[in-house]
């Protein structure tokens, strides 16, 4: 089943009673059952972020705060066959819980180009659009972004099977505790530290490195486009709004004219309409900006996947190098020929060779270490190869999705421009007819 199919089936509107899965996940059979149910359900479950509400409560440090919660509704689509249409199940989630889910998924599936969350704070804002997180338009667009995130994750061939994801959608209370119990945080922190350090990799995967370079380009180009678009929107807003002054002056002027009065007055109304029309036009364009922003953030996720490969590859190289040097040490011990400088070698020269029993002991230890090392290298190599394979598969999946989505976004943009032109034609046409009556 391809990701496309999953997405479509998730998005269509059918519903029925969802059979509550058994909550006791102890027996392996039960676990398998749940997994199967989960994978089936998510592919045939309708998900939406239906509503937004403001809540007040005490936070972690017992301070009063206001925050926004989002209502997640889910409905199984088995009802299509059965013809029933029950109300959806629902629960409320905060933005921070979405973040927690995403961070968890990143740790569990590091090779996946993780769908991004909508921005926490409004960026690339043109001056009239409120940069305030409480602004209703911003909150609405965030609702759409969160829904989009859930749909992407739930239709992903790998991610859709995740238990924690399933419970995020269905288990209102105790979900956070469940996530913390997995102790993913510890793993996350250590990985993060390693990733942020600089390290040099000798032979990373060529394709993934090309992808890393591409992710930088994607990030740079989308942010430039977004910035420029914002400035254009700002200017266009000014042009339209100044025309509103025509409305006011024409109206005043019409009061002192007899013949010209009517024509001027009605033309003035059209000028007011023209000035007002820009608000809707630019609000719609924000959706286009959001589509681009999603891929701006996706670029970061793509880069992260490539970086993690680099880290993995680096660790493999370190382990291999370690093995090589241990083997060298063994050789030296066995043959007595010192190839590389070592402190032991120096002390041997100065203080004389050690006793044969000691040497024997050291050799045995080395052999053990070498055996372990070889295991480690084998494991690490397999891990690396597996990572590259999985990552590349998801990168290809991402590429296809990106091309399709962005082409659609560009086409939508063209539609928006066309609609704006049509409005313009209508208004100026009407204005011209009014002027003709002057």
């Amino acid at each position: 089943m391809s990701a496309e199919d999953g997405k479509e089936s998730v998005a269509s509107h059918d519903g029925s009673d969802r059979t509550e899965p058994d909550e006791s996940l102890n027996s392996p059979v039960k676990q398998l059952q749940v997994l199967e149910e989960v994978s089936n359900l998510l592919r045939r479950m309708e998900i939406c972020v239906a509503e937004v509400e403001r809540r007040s409560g005490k936070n972690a440090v017992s301070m009063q705060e206001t925050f926004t919660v989002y209502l997640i509704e889910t409905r199984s689509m088995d009802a299509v066959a059965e013809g029933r249409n029950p109300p959806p199940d629902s629960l409320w989630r905060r933005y921070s819980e979405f973040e927690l889910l995403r961070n968890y998924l990143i740790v569990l599936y590091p090779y996946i180009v993780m769908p991004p969350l909508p921005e926490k704070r409004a960026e690339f804002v043109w001056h009239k659009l409120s940069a305030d997180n409480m602004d209703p338009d911003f909150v609405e667009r965030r609702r759409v972004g969160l829904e989009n995130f859930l749909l992407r994750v739930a239709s992903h061939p790998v991610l859709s099977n995740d238990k924690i994801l399933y419970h995020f959608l269905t288990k209102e209370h105790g979900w956070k505790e469940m996530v913390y119990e997995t102790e993913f945080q510890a793993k996350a922190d250590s990985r993060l530290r390693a990733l942020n350090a600089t390290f040099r990799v000798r032979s990373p995967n060529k394709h993934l490195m090309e992808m890393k370079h591409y992710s930088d380009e994607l990030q740079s180009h989308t942010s430039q486009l977004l910035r420029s678009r914002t400035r254009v929107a700002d200017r266009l807003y000014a042009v339209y709004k100044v025309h509103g002054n025509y409305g006011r002056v024409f109206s005043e002027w019409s009061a002192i004219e007899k013949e010209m009065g009517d024509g001027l007055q009605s033309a003035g109304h059209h000028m007011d309409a023209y000035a007002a029309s820009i608000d809707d036009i630019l609000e719609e364009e924000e959706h286009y900006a959001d589509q681009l922003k999603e891929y701006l953030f996706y670029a970061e996720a793509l880069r992260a996947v490539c970086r993690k490969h680099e880290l993995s590859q680096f660790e493999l190289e370190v382990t291999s190098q370690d093995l090589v040097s241990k083997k060298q040490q063994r050789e030296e011990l066995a043959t007595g020929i010192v190839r590389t400088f070592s402190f032991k070698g120096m002390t041997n020269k100065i203080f004389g060779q050690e006793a044969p029993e000691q040497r024997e002991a050291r050799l045995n230890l080395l052999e053990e270490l070498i055996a372990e090392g070889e295991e480690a290298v084998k494991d690490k190599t397999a891990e690396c190869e597996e990572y590259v394979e999985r990552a590349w598969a998801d990168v290809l999946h991402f590429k296809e999705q990106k091309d399709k989505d962005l082409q659609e976004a560009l086409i939508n943009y063209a539609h928006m421009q066309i609609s704006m032109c049509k409005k313009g034609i209508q208004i100026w046409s009407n204005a011209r007819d009014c002027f003709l009556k002057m």
Partner: protein
Amino acid sequence: MSGHTVPADISGHMLDLDEDDDLEVFSKNTSLADEGPMPNSPGSMVNQYRLEDDEEEQQDANTKDIFVTVDNPESQITALETFIMYRVVTKTTRSEFDSSEYEVRRRYQDFLWLRSKLEENNPTIIVHPLPEKFVMKGMVERFNDDFIETRRKALHHFLNRISEHPILSYSQYLKVFLTAQELAPHKKQGPSFLSRMGETMRAVANSVRGLRNRLDEFTVMQEYAEDFSNKICSIDKVTQRIIKEQREYLDELKQYSPTYFQWAESEEELAEPLRGVGSCVERCSKETEEQVQHLSEVLVPALHEYVLCADTLKAVMRRRDNIQAEFEVKNEALASRRNEEEMLQEEVDDLADRMEEANNALRGDWSRWKNIMRTDLKSAFVSTAERNKEYYEKCLAVWESFLVSQRGESIEQRDEEHAS
């Protein structure tokens, strides 16, 4: 004019005047809209005539017997100064002209002289304004090509308005201006500097004194002149602001389209639609440039002309008031001085006639001016609205062709998928 009272209902009076004065311009094709009881307000009555633009142009074409053009600006360099000379060509069938064709060279100063003479001799006629002496904002070089061309157009327009005017076109000063090879000798004639000074001072004194009996109709006109001036100045300002904002929008657009092309360089599948959008934005920005150009060339000059006209209106009203004031002063003197009654009486009668003449001339010219104003501004606004509509139509076509190209692409893709 002692004892003469103006009839309360002056409707009949007004109708006659209009028919007489405007016969040259608005002849037989004019139908007087009979709208039942005539409103008393003079303002409403002078606006009775509804004329189609075409009709009026035809009128002019049929009755016009003098054609003037201003062209061929050339700079003249003398020891003392540099200035521009314009060629003024006149073609006429009028009998008072000795020849049917004239060609002379005139400079801006000469136009100023002509206009001041026309105003002097027709104080209550609304004489079309000349383009301004300097352009303060933007610090345009006096001999910048655009500036010269704009000025030439305005001078041409000015002479045409004068030569179309039923009264002004018969002025001897106009004739001299159009025909004399050397204008200098003619300039020396006329009231001396001192006498003009005297006139100005009297005018100031009169305005301070205030009028005793201004007719309502003239108060209405004066108020209109004030209001119109405010409104037209506002519209002029708004239009300038729109142009400024459009230019800034254009600047941003020029930065915007390259972001699409740059992005396309690092893409494969997406490169083509990205370039498509980029080139759409480019083409739309060219259309925007042309639309702004149209605004600057059509609407701005028209509005600007009427900003200057508004000042002329106010000046005309002041001069009319002044003429009335002069009469009133003398009239009052007559009433209080018994001895020099006879001589004063003559003066007073002359001033009364002068005032009557001035008032009538104003009334006639007022309605004519209003009609021309209406026609001019209507045409400028219609043209602007039409051009703006065209702008959006062109941009629409640009984006629609992009969509068509994308649809074509996706159809191809789908066919490929089905084939494989």
